[in-house]
């Protein structure tokens, strides 16, 4: 495998509305295993940001540790990235977001990084409703340490090591719902048509947007006995519906065959349009979302697509009432009380 990426740019390459080519949204060449689901997710991220016309350098990419957490190197090469410590991406992302509310934040984590070592921090970033896209590249195993079961490995699922997992698995979408996330989705790395609009919707969502992406580990957990392998996942998908992202002011051209179409309006007027399959339920109802995940699970299937979306929750900055100007741009004059108050101050200590 070559580690050098060609810097060739086709002169007629398509540019987006702000003049960037798709190449401008790519990163370094991936060093993950050939066929790794994570690379497909990176590609979906590239496509989404390109299509959403976001300047690459106005995004901050933050991750923890693990195969998934390596991926921010492989997309948005013009954006700053931070590969932090295991399970602690949420706190670093929180601090970064507090410092500059004007950037876009994308947090990338894995099932070990989020559901085990980082469970505490995951719970609290959701509670704070930080304005960030949080993507879990969920392969149901620890890839970088060669395939141990993780906390999202389903009971009975067996990886290449062969022993079926005995312990209950954690459903991160249910956790995110329970903890108050405003945007919850699940997808599959092999279903780009579904994943891209979900990421676009997450980009537009103000507040915490969670996407659990099942992303098979080709090396350690792609066996016939694994519930996170390509074959099993493909055979057991149950989408809430087909998603389309419709930017603000763009005309709706979605066919509405049987009246099951449902729109979710995002803060800037853009819309997510869901063509529901069969389970008609209210996307803004936490209770129904929980119920839907459980119902589909009982049928031994995996619910994917947009599971829940509610635009009305204030994010961390709104909750703690910070100024609209990024805190990292405030200068001494705006921050320091100055010597003028010293007399009063010192008098108070006498």
């Amino acid at each position, binding site marked *: 495998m070559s580690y050098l990426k060609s810097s060739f740019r086709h002169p007629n390459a398509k540019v987006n509305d702000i003049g960037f080519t798709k190449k401008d949204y790519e990163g370094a060449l991936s060093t993950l295993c050939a066929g790794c689901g994570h690379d497909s997710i990176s590609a979906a991220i590239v496509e989404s940001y390109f299509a959403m016309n976001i*300047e*690459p*350098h*106005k995004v*901050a990419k*933050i991750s923890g540790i693990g195969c998934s957490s390596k991926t*921010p*190197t492989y997309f948005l*090469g*013009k*954006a*700053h*990235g*931070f*590969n*932090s*410590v295991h399970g*602690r991406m*949420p*706190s*670093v*992302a*929180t*601090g*970064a*977001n*507090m*410092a*500059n509310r*004007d*950037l876009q934040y994308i947090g990338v984590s894995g099932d070990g990084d989020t559901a085990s070592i980082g469970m*505490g*921090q995951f*719970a*609290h970033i959701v509670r*704070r409703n930080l304005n960030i896209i949080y993507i879990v590249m969920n392969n149901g195993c620890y890839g970088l340490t060669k395939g141990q079961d993780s906390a999202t490995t389903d009971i009975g699922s067996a990886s290449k090591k062969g022993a079926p997992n005995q312990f209950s698995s954690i459903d991160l979408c249910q956790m995110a719902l329970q903890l108050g996330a405003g945007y919850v989705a699940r997808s599959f790395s092999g279903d780009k048509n579904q994943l891209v609009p979900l990421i676009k919707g997450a980009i537009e969502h103000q507040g915490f947007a969670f996407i659990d992406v099942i992303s098979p580990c080709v090396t350690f957990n792609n066996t016939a006995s694994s519930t996170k392998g390509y074959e099993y996942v493909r055979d057991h998908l149950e989408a809430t519906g087909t998603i389309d992202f419709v930017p603000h002011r763009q005309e709706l051209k979605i066919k509405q065959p049987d009246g099951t179409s449902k729109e979710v309006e995002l803060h800037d007027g853009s819309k997510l349009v869901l063509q529901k399959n069969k389970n008609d339920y209210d996307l803004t109802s936490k209770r129904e979302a929980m119920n839907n995940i459980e119902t589909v699970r009982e049928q031994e299937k995996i619910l994917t697509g947009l599971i829940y979306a509610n635009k009305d929750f204030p994010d*961390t*900055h709104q909750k*703690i*009432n*910070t*100024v*609209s100007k990024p*805190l*990292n741009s*405030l200068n*001494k004059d*705006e*921050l*320091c*009380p*100055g*010597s003028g*108050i*010293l007399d009063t*101050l*010192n008098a108070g*200590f*006498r």
Partner: protein
Amino acid sequence: MTTHNNIKATNDFVIRFANINGSGSASANNLFTKVVFRLGIPVSAKNIFPSNIQGLPTWFEVRINEDGYLGRREGYDFIVATNGQTEQKDYHELLPGGYYFYDSSRKLPDNLKRTDITEIGVPLTNICNENYTDPRLRQIFKNIIYVGAIAYLFDMDFSVFEDSIKSQFAKKEKLIAPNIKALKLGYDYAQAHYANVCGLKIHRRDCIKDKIMMEGNTATGLGAVFGGATVAGWYPITPSTSVIEAFEMYCKKFRIDEETQRNKFAIVQAEDELAAIGIVIGATWNGARAFTATSGPGVSLMSEFLGLAYFAEIPVFLADIQRSGPSTGMPTRTQQSDMLAAAYASHGDTKHVLLIPSDPKECFEMTVTGLDLAERLQTPVIMMSDLDLGMNIHVCDPIEWDDNRLYDRGKVLDQSALEEKQERWGRYLDVDGDGIPYRTIPGTHPKKGAFFTRGSSHDEYAVYTEDGTVYAKGMERLLVKWDTAKNIVPKPIIKSKNKSSAIIYYGTSASASQEANDMLTKAGHQFDEMCIKSFPFGKEVEDFIQSHDTIYVIEQNRDAQMKTLMVNELGIDPNKFNEILNFDGMPITAQYIVDNIKKNPNQSESLKVVK
């Protein structure tokens, strides 16, 4: 009453208030302390409190000393005993000739019989019951009544008490009259029953000048406001919590945007200390000034992130308000026992800059300096305060601020600097030999300056590498930066008369150490002194050690941690240092230091007889 030699002293004695926590005694005791201060007399107060909210013993020790010695002194000349749980202990700990003040509504137990002290019984409960009907007021005013009584006994200017009450309750005027009434009840009772009984006096002096009295943690929080910190991530832990509380209080005063009424600060109470420092790292990486405060257990939890900040070169300012360890230890007792844990926090080869304040003013200044140094050096800077400094009130010089002082944001390339840059920029490239590379802030430039921050090994261009030579070169450059730090961290304070013997101390051991040296000097055995203010050690520290034959290192921990740092970092023969170690959780005293210097078998015979 028995005849014995009463202690007679003016403006030089120690009073201990024995209370029950949660009973409202703290504000009464603080009132007394403040009045002493306002009478122009140096005073120090040590709150010895339990890790509990209500019902357990708590003591408040006030040392009044017009010579300005404000370290703790052992031995109580006067005890205000209001806690039945500790009555036996309090009674017996009183110095011979001392005064035992108690609530005589109940007779003293028969077994409390000392003939060498003076008992002063004031029926606090009865007076309260006669004058107040509300049970809550009875409890609160009981404390004020004893303050009124001792005001008489110590012959203090009563008008200062009245003025203090008036200013304290300026916004709750209804409370002024009942408080003054309670003070008078105590004052009048003492006057009627104990005229000319107490030999301890507090008389007005002019020793305070423009000094102030505050807690170190308040000064630290204030320093973070002046120093431009905008983000604080934190997790509650005694004795550091009041740092963030002070920061929040002053932010609400000085950092609310007038027009929008919105906050020019973000305080995030994290889920644990790991997250608290993660928030700081995320914020400083993204160009804001940020800080956190914690204590020993928090430093343990933050270690992993401190290693990341050291290796990835991200500014961090952390205030460690030390308490007695190890583990949970004695959470409400003081110690200087995190020195090693902080200096070398995290796995692998790491070392961190430490700043060591001795009084609240230094807490303020070192917080501002620490925020500067963290950004200048792109590394963690840890301020080593402690419970004694952080949570007790200390007399110190007033807070100062020079409006010409700029924030040192360190080596940051802004948009135009990146635009003009012709040669390839390397995040970890040392271009000018000080070991400090230039950094960029996310979102600065569309095409230039982006890089991937990581705790894994990286080359000068922030690219992942497993090339051992490249890795080693980076680790060696961090040592160049360490050498740069030696020249810009606060210098030690040295008092030298070219003696061959010296004492070395730091932080809250300063007052007691200086007093000890004065005691020894009076007996003809003067020592040179060095108060260490920071780590790494600069040349001054090394020279001072080299130029003395006998050195005592005074510390408040068991293992002589500062000595270890000096031996380790400066290659000094450990035998050169004599250890004076106090680690019982109580602030160190001058007498303890003198006694231990005398105990040294190598010490001269003449010194051994010094009292």
